[in-house]
Every structure is written in C-alpha cells, then in structure tokens.
C-alpha cells in the first residue's frame, strides 16, 4: 500500500500557481526523488505535505488517512519529518537540546528526560556531531547545521522523511557519505522523498523520480527513464549536464 498519496495538489501565491494539480504516491520503503528547475514548486510541495502551507485544492493521504488539513505538529506526530532547504535549527539552544526536542516530541517520545538525552546523544554520534554536543546551534557552521537538522528530524522517529537539498554545499566526499547514510537509513525502514539538484548523487539512491516544472508534474519514472526523457532534458537536465 502507498505510504503517502498526493492527489491534484494545488497552491497559489496571488496569481502564481506554485504547485498545480500535482499527483504522485510513495510506497513504503521507497526513496523517491523530486526534481525540477529553481522555483518549480518542490519546496512548496513539502510545505503542503507538512501542513506549513494550506493547499487550495487537492488531497494528501498518509497511511490511508486524510492529512490535508493537519497542523504541522500533527503531521509530525503521525510520523512525517522534514528538513528545511534553508536550515532552521533552534539557534539559541545547544546541539544536544535541539535533538532532544525532536526526541521528546515527534511521533514517539522517549519515556523520560534521561532517555531523551541518551537517545539524542546517540543520534549526534551517528550523524557525526559528537564533538559539538554543547555548542550553541546558531554558532555552528553550515555543514554542521545541516547535519543537526537531519539529526533532529531523525529524532522524531519518522516513517517518512522529506529532505530538501541536504547535500547542497557539501563537498563530494561528504556527499558520498550522505548518500551511504541515507541508503542505510532506508534499510532501517524509513521511506524518503528527496529534493536535490545534485542529480548524480540523487539518481544513485532513488527508486523513482518525479519531475516538476513551473508547478506541474511533467514526468515520473525510474532514474534511467528520467535521464532519457526528452522534455526533462530540455527544461532541466540539459542545464545540469553542461553546468
């Protein structure tokens, strides 16, 4: 069964339809890529799924439940987590506390503050932030803040994880590490939708790719199919091959 199903999702900002009648679904255990040129509506799709924005039209179901009108914290509690394209850790809090918030709330909260802290430390180890435990999040460098945002999202124990350009700004080695990390994560049962402009890295881990252009879905298929799709090459991939 589909874990997430999006039907005819539409969102306008004034006269601009940032997302226009987009439909797709994600099966349990999949990694689905979401690509498209700048401004094609990828982040907006994430905002709509997570309840940060209200759709004008369309329906979002998760585990068969209609979550279209859920508030963001209800979305999180039902097991969906995300990262922001422009990272947003809690700036005044320590790295540890940032992750503890995720662990204390999210879809299944730890039993005590003691457990919350232990789990948070474990996650910080896992994401390579062990030596930043007591740093103030607002003072961390971008790469660390990206890692922190991922750790915080994971701390909520999601079944579906939405990643918005987590690899932008990383060097090739870090990118490879991230790809491996995400593949490992999938093996623990986390389903993912990944927005990424680094096509090579993205195609190396996705089962399926959805392509948006100007708010509309123009293609969907395996990475292999997508890389040969005329229209996709024309509006999007072309630029990147040459870039």
């Amino acid at each position, binding site marked *: 069964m589909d874990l997430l199903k999006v039907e005819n999702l539409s969102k306008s900002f004034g006269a601009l339809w940032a997302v226009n009648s987009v439909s797709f679904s994600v099966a349990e255990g999949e990694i689905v890529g979401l690509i498209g040129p700048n401004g094609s509506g990828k982040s907006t799709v994430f905002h709509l799924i*997570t*309840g*940060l924005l209200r759709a004008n039209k369309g329906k979002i179901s998760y585990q068969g439940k209609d979550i279209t009108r859920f*508030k*963001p*914290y209800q979305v*999180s*509690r039902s097991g969906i*987590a*995300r990262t*922001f394209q422009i990272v*947003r*850790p*809690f*700036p*005044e*809090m320590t790295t540890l*506390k940032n992750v*503890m*918030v*995720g662990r*204390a*709330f*999210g*879809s299944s*909260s730890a039993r005590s*503050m003691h457990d*919350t802290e232990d789990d948070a430390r474990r996650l910080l180890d896992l994401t390579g932030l062990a030596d930043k435990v007591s740093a103030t999040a607002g003072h961390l460098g971008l790469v660390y803040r990206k890692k922190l945002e991922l750790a*915080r*999202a994971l*701390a*909520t124990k999601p079944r579906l994880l939405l990643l918005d350009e987590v690899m932008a700004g990383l060097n090739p080695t870090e990118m490879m590490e991230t790809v491996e990390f995400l593949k490992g994560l999938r093996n623990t049962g986390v389903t993912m939708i990944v927005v990424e402009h680094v096509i090579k890295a993205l195609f190396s881990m996705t089962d399926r790719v959805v392509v948006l252009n100007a708010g509309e879905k123009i293609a969907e298929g395996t990475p292999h199919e997508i890389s040969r799709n005329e229209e996709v090459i024309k509006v999007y991939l072309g630029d990147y091959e040459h870039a």
Partner: protein
Amino acid sequence: MVERKKGLVLAAAVIVALALVPFFTVREYVFSILCMLFLYVTLSQSWNILGGYTGQINVGQAAFFGMGALVARLLWVAGVPFYLSILAGGLGSVILAIIIGLPALKLRGHYFAIGTLAVATIAQITVGNILPGISFLPAQQMATYSLIPRYYVFLIIMAAALAVIYFTVNSRVGLGMEATRDDEEAAQMVGVNTFKYKMIAFLISSFFAGLAGGGFAYFNASYYWYLPFTLMWCFEPILIVFIGGVGSFLGPVIGSVCYVLLKELFALTLGEANLLIFGIVFILTILFFPKGVIGLPAKLRQLFYRRGNVVGR
C-alpha cells in the same frame, strides 16, 4: 546531573537559611528589603518563563500583578482567610491570562505584546476610575500588623515559584517552550504544539505574578487601589530579567539582587531621576549586552579573543 543535584541542595540550603533570618534579627529594614527582593525574584522569574524561555514578550505584567493584588486585597479585607484570598488572586490573574492568551497567542509577532500592553493600560485606568481612593486596612488587622508573617509569605511564594519554574524549564515542557521561542515553525515541524506551550507558560507566569501581587496586597498597610497596576510593574520585571540574563534560570535572581540594591542606593541619592538611570541602563543592556550579567563572562571572552586575533595577525 551531579552538578544539578548540587545546585538544588545549595538552593534548598539558601531558602532554609532565609527562613531562619527572623531568629537572628528583628530589624525592620532588613525584612522589608528582603521582602522586596523576594517579590522581585518571583515577579521577574514569572516574566522569564514566558518571555525568556518561550519568547512571548509580556509588556503588561502589571495587569496580572495588579489583578492578584486587587482580588486578594478585596477578599482579605472582607474577612476571607489570607491564604485563600491570595490563591484567589493568583486564579484571577490566570483567568485574565486565558482571556488574553486565547486570541493573542494563537497569532505570531506583535499581537501578544499589544494585547498585554492594552490590558495593562486599560486595567490601570479602569481600576483608577472605579476605585479612585486608598485601600486602608481595617483597624483590627492594622492592630496586629507585623512584618514577620509577611516575610514568610513572600519567602514561600518565591520558593514555590522557583521550584515550579525550575522543574518546568528542565522538563519536556521546557524543551517545548524553548523550541517555540527559537523558531515556531521548526518547532511545530518536530511535533511541538506551540500554542499549547505558550499557553502553559502564560498560565504559570500569570499565576505567580498574581501571587506576588497578593503578597503586595498583604504587605502594604495602605495604598492607592490602582498602584499595583502602574507602568512600573510592567517595566521592572523586564528590566530585571534583562539585567540578570534573559532565558536563564539564575538571571532573574541575579537581576533582582542588583536591582533592589541599586534602587536603594539611587532612591537615596537621586530621587525621581533614578528611573532615568534605569531606563538608560535597560536600553544599553538590550543594545549591547543582550545576555545580561550571566552572559558577561562569555561576552568579555569574545571581546578578548577578537583583540587577540587582531594582534596575532
């Protein structure tokens, strides 16, 4: 963890020591200074859980302080036992908080500040209109007036406020509050119902502000009914919290000690102009030392390092 236990033991020891003060001195001056200190610790700590930990700036704390004073005084003077009157005062503040919080905390930005300022100015004027006179204690209560029970009332209120707020901010609830302060959307994104945590903070805050007001009503033999609603009671808790260190547990305590001492000093030497000094100190703090006394060591270190770097190059 161990350090936290040590801190708690130390705090308990300080409270016990304060409870013993009346056995060692009978000087009224000492008592009244300490009463004011306890009052300011309670009031500023109650502001801090909402403003410092949850990021909701209440510019009308006087409304909640005043409400507690008004209800407690009315009931007490009418013959209700004092401990019931003061609790009723706390409850009155909580009800006021619910009326303001339900609409204003749902929204972001300036709405909460405007709502609290509105309720404070309006409360002051309305109370001044309806009860223009002075509230005197009835003769028989006046005859038995003594500072010692007042001292203990303030001490108990302060100890309760410190304990409740300490355990709240160090719990899961506290994590929710701090996340709400730092970034509401991001907090919601990890499952925090931010409205709920703002409301919890506001209820705790208004309850203890109301109790502090009740203490004020118990302490003063006679005062204008509107006095606990005046602008100063809005300003003082904010000033104290920022001087001490906003969003830290010890900040309001340190701030209160500084404030009470400085106020004594200035009031003697400067008269009315002392408010000018506090206004200026406050603005300088916000502009240049946003973390207050608590943040001073880090700030100095930062300055020092920057110097060092320049020299190093």
